[in-house]
């Protein structure tokens, strides 16, 4: 298709960064799931996790110790946090093309996501 909008490249840069980070994140999540199911490398046994969840009970999974649960969380985090570099990569082009207020909105989005992530881990 023909695309003449000047900010088009910013969108493509954002999309490609998020796309590949999400795919890498998905592979890590898959690895964590297989490790949990096949090797039982979890703080709480998987069958016990599912039993409790299906019975409607709440379940606190310990994320601090390294286990398959932690590997899954790393995959999820990678995909979510990839939004921050993806936005940052797209901003210089927007700024140069005169969309400066939009670039400020973009930077504020990146900052909010980074702050929420930092709050969750500390």
């Amino acid at each position: 298709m023909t695309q003449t909008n000047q900010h088009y490249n910013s969108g493509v840069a954002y999309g490609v960064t998020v796309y590949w980070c999400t795919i890498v994140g998905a592979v890590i999540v898959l690895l964590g799931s297989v490790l949990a199911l096949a090797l039982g490398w979890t703080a709480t046994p998987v069958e016990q996790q599912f039993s409790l969840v299906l019975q409607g009970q709440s379940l606190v999974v310990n994320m601090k110790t390294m286990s398959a649960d932690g590997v899954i969380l790393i995959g999820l985090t990678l995909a979510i946090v990839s939004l921050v570099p993806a936005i940052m990569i797209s901003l210089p082009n927007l700024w140069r093309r005169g969309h400066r207020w939009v670039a400020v909105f973009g930077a504020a989005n990146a900052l909010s996501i980074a702050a929420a992530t930092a709050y969750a881990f500390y």
Partner: protein
Amino acid sequence: MVAAVYMSIFVRVPELTLLIIVSLVGFGMVPLLASYAAESSLSLGALVGLTLGSFLLSLVIAIVAVVAGIGGGVIFTPIVLGFTSIDTLVVRATGLVVAMFSGLISAAPLLNRGLVDIRLVYVCALPTIIGGVLGAMAAFHLAASMGASADALVRLLLGLLLLGVAYVFVRGGGRNDYPKPQPSKGLAAILSLDMSYYESSLNGTVSYKVQRLGWAIGLFILVGFIGGFFGLGGGWAMVPVLNLVMAVPLKAAAASSGVLLALGNAAAIWPYIVYGALVPMLVAPWMLGQVAGGILGAHLLAHVKVKVVRRLLITMLLLTAIKLIHRGIDGLTAAEVGLML
């Protein structure tokens, strides 16, 4: 015809083919590798079946969600809350993951095709993020202050909300496919969010100018709050706001909504993780299904009849709403009787 479309997608997008094959082989190999305790309450077959079933269901939900531009959360959360006894906070945390991952992965193909304007996404994401975080924190506050009856109240409120969503889809369906471009005013004029994209069904370029941006920002805070509170994501309301309030053409609104959803929920998911409501083993197959289905849905968007998807969705929303209201009233009545005794 449909099979040919699917085949061409699998050939053009090798990473999708690889991801689906690796997922199926990975889960399929588990019984061969596992050393499993015989006295376990759930058999290994049941565990693998649950995981594979979740993955395949998530894949289908993601295709429907991307094509309709609503995010998977609005399908996943009500169904699981309506038909299972899983804790509502766990369901809502998983619902947010379901809502955002199809949006994350479908961003690249939709932005490449020029259907989504990244400037529009950035401007609308900030109020959605703020609303989403407030909604997620309110969910935990309600759970802590109301105890067991909070679950029933959430089911009842969600059921009523779904009735409203179904009404929006019935009323708004196809009425504003290509809004007539009007000169932008106020904030929309300052940000000059004019955009055009190539519309294959018209074999021409569609241009639009964003309207009423100030109103839309207020509405996106509300949409973010509801999405974060119920774990729906909020895509169901983003399409009407973009299309009916901001005068974005329907197809571009549906595409933008998915991308916006991913960005808008990226912060709202963290309070659920901090409070331990996210169960990684439960979330994993749903995330994988959303990634694979999100890619498929983005490539199918040009070929699918949106009207068929919309009708299916309305039927499903109505049935789930009835079930949720029924369970909500039952739960509240039981809690009241318990208090009286």
